[in-house]
């Protein structure tokens, strides 16, 4: 079994542990089928689909259990609160990233020779410092404001990856 398939299988097993009891049989069924998917690429898509299926099933079960409208309203309020928290986390991380980028651009504009003397500065200001700030903020907020922490990480991970790839591909320029 390839490393990709092993990882996919482990992720699905992790889901199995957290899925509700009624969907467990189905989660096991999907996991078993993973062994019969031919290619690794198809196995990943199969696993992603399984995650979506279990998620849909769990949400439907939860809505079914929350039969009365009062509890359903509470659930919806909770979802809205969490979504707003995540959005504010994304916004906070976005503002911080824009500030870091702006500061770097300003420093280069006012002192062009500064860029030549400090080739490591973009790495520091665009990757190291924001990522450190994002991680610290996410850890600090993870207990009391988990949704905001998730929002920060939601933006921080693709942003950090993008900056790292951009700097790596333009390093030779």
């Amino acid at each position: 079994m390839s490393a990709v398939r092993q990882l996919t299988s482990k992720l699905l097993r992790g889901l199995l542990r957290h899925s509700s009891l009624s969907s467990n049989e189905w989660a096991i069924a999907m996991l078993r089928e993973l062994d019969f998917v031919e290619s690794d690429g198809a196995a990943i898509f199969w696993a992603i689909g399984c995650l979506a299926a279990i998620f849909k099933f769990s949400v439907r079960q939860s809505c079914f259990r929350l039969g009365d409208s009062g509890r359903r309203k509470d659930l919806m309020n909770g979802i809205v609160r969490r979504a707003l928290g995540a959005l504010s986390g994304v916004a906070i991380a976005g503002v911080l990233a824009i500030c870091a980028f702006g500061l770097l651009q300003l420093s280069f504009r006012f002192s062009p020779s500064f860029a030549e003397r400090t080739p490591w500065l973009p790495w520091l200001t665009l990757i190291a410092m924001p990522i450190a700030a994002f991680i610290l903020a996410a850890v600090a907020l993870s207990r009391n404001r988990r949704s905001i922490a998730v929002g920060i990480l939601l933006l921080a991970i693709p942003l950090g990856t993008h900056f790292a790839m951009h700097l790596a591909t333009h390093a030779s320029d």
Partner: protein
Amino acid sequence: VKLRVSRQTLQVLNAFLEDPPEWKHGYGISQTTGLKSGTLYPILMRLAERKLLETSWDASEIGKPPRHLYRLTAAGLQFAREGSRSRPTGRVSGAALGGMKS
């Protein structure tokens, strides 16, 4: 009672209609219908919930973990046949379900 049946559900039902008594695997149905697992399994779960589909575990292959198998029940077979007849609209009479509502 009229039940709304999606195009994908009809595809799944038609896959079972090809050889009704035969037990089928999830991946096999996915290959036959072209449906992804995220679409296929919720359909299978709903059909099983409504007793249109019976499930079983296939432990015949020694040394391999058992696979989940699916087959239409008598009610499921009637429902599928009605579904494939009224295919353009995807509307199926609930009589096949014994009055069950979606």
